[in-house]
């Protein structure tokens, strides 16, 4: 990401807000695309209140006051968030954010709380094609949360544990509820926790790669969204696809960054 500006916020600034199902994210840019502030907070009920608080906090920390010239909101809570000037889809925002971070990116994989998506970009960063998960929570952040809970682990620990496995079990079901039953039956049979964890990571990775195959997995592949912080999943994706997967810097806010870049572009006009 463009380096954080120390200069303060005399000019107009541009706000991107991403209201997801699990977390809200916000990014503030100046007119030179310099990062003035960013923040992530749990979404709570509906995300609207959490987003408003987060935006206030980001503006306060950046000493930006009321200098926001334009704001774009994305994510599932976008429709109700009236503070923003415009709403845009997560596809456009993640594509924009990822391309800004690395113009060599041609495939963006975003694993969010409710949705996972694969986006193919052209050399100009335009969205050529995209695919999203079907009506099923398998292959999403929610899946990982549920499975971590089934193993009695915090989400962060869950990914680390998977890395220690030598013999990952096979989890055949792609349904979150059925996969959980499958994992529990493996545990009941005395399979080591790390092997179950690794099996679950492989299941989610194979699901996401199936999605990505619909748009073509062209290098360079970038992973965005909070799930990108899970090292176990990144390695499972690389292992199964045979491709290098770049993790975005600060992957959780890539959608909000894209929204802020759109805000800058639109606000300037």
């Amino acid at each position: 990401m463009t380096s954080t500006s120390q200069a303060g916020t005399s000019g107009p600034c541009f706000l991107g807000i991403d209201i997801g199902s699990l977390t809200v994210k916000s990014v503030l840019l100046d007119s030179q695309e310099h990062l003035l502030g960013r923040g992530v907070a749990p979404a709570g009920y509906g995300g609207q209140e959490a987003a408003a608080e987060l935006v206030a906090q980001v503006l306060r920390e950046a000493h930006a006051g009321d200098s926001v010239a334009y704001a774009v909101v994305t994510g599932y809570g976008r429709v109700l968030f009236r503070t923003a000037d415009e709403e845009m889809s997560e596809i456009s925002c993640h594509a924009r954010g990822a391309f800004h971070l690395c113009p060599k990116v041609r495939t963006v994989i975003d694993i969010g709380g409710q949705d996972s998506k694969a986006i193919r970009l052209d050399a100009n960063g335009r969205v050529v094609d995209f695919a999203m998960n079907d009506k099923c929570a398998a292959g999403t952040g929610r899946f990982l949360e549920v499975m971590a809970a089934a193993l009695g682990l915090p989400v962060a620990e869950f990914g680390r544990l998977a890395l220690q496995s030598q013999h990952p079990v096979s989890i055949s079901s792609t349904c979150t509820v059925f996969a959980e039953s499958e994992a529990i039956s493996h545990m009941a049979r005395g399979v080591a926790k790390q092997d179950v964890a690794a099996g679950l990571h492989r299941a989610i990775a194979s699901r996401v790669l199936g999605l990505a195959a619909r748009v073509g997995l062209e290098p360079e592949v970038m992973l965005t969204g909070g799930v990108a912080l899970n090292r176990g999943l990144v390695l499972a994706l690389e292992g199964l696809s045979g491709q290098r997967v770049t993790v975005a810097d600060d992957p959780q806010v890539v959608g909000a960054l894209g929204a802020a870049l759109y805000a800058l572009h639109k606000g300037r006009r």
Partner: protein
Amino acid sequence: MAEKRYKKLKTAVELQRLMQWHYASARYLRLGRPLAWVTSGAPVEILRAMGIAVLYPENYAALCAARQPAPTLCQVAEARGYSQDLCSYARTDLGSAFDPAYAPMQGLPKPDLLIACNNICGTVVKWYEAMAGYYNVPLFVLDTPFIHDQVQESMLSYVAAQLEELVRFVERATGHRLDMARLSEAVRVANETTALWGEIRALCKSRPSPLNAPDLFVNMAPIVVLRGSHSALRFYRNLKAEVEERVRRGVGAIPEEKYRLLWDNIAIWHHLYRFYNYFADCDACFVVDTYTGGWSQTLPEGEPLSGIAAAYATVFLNSSLQYRVECMVRLIQEYGVDGFVMHCNRSCKPYSLGQYAMRRAVMERTGVPGLLIESDMCDARSYAEEPIRTRIQAFMESLAARA
């Protein structure tokens, strides 16, 4: 509110009256005529010529979806052991038969005979077998071999031979005989009507398009259920005049047409206006579709039964994916289409299977982007509002970025 943004056709009143008359007359005004329930791809001209009244359970199921009770009727069928993976037309109709109290118009009047043609899918065979058992009435299954590449002469003679059997079946079941002069007349009227429907669809090549997908879906009802009747012929003459008038005056179906889209698969009947208005809000109009064109094919000249065999054996859904890709590519070129939307319809397996491959093939051939939307034609429980809205928005943003 969404509906109000929609430019209503003047013929809408006539359409409504025509369809009400269709359903009411099948119940109250049959004048001694036997009643057949048939699939949408059955050779109805023969039945008209034999003086048989005809109802289409598929059309009735769509009506149940538009008026909302379809999921309840599906659940009635599911409670009797029919799988939720079964076609929602079948579940809705079976549900309306099992428990008419939940069904619009108290369900359909009981049939005297059933005719299923598997040119549209294999489900109809088992579905109609179930109904034949339930009502204890005779069933005729017309088998049309799937066309993997080319139509073979043997396929057509196989189907034509079955049509002769169909005539004997109806004669046995009802005592009505086939009058060849009436058959030629029914074919003539059907052909004139389907030609008009084809011409109406072709008028949508104009910019702006005079009709949008919901117009096509709503106005296709008579071509399906009243094909070969004089009342349908009159209706399509009037509809064509009105659509021509829109073209002459440069009136579009939506307020501002910026993007022209193609639709693939059966309509989402339960969210008809709401769903297509998401596109209209982005100035996108569906100018053509692969579905309603299924009833614009005229029957070949010559001996009626072999002409009917040739037409019904070669419908869109009875043909290979390659053929369907060719059709989509041709329509995209002819109608100046900017993008296409495929409804991945949980119910309709033959229509939805292979859509990922078709989408890729059409995109490669035309350079035009395509979107896949998951839903179901009748069962509103398979419609997820927010994920659908997100996909439409992303697709329309990517179309705008291309412009």
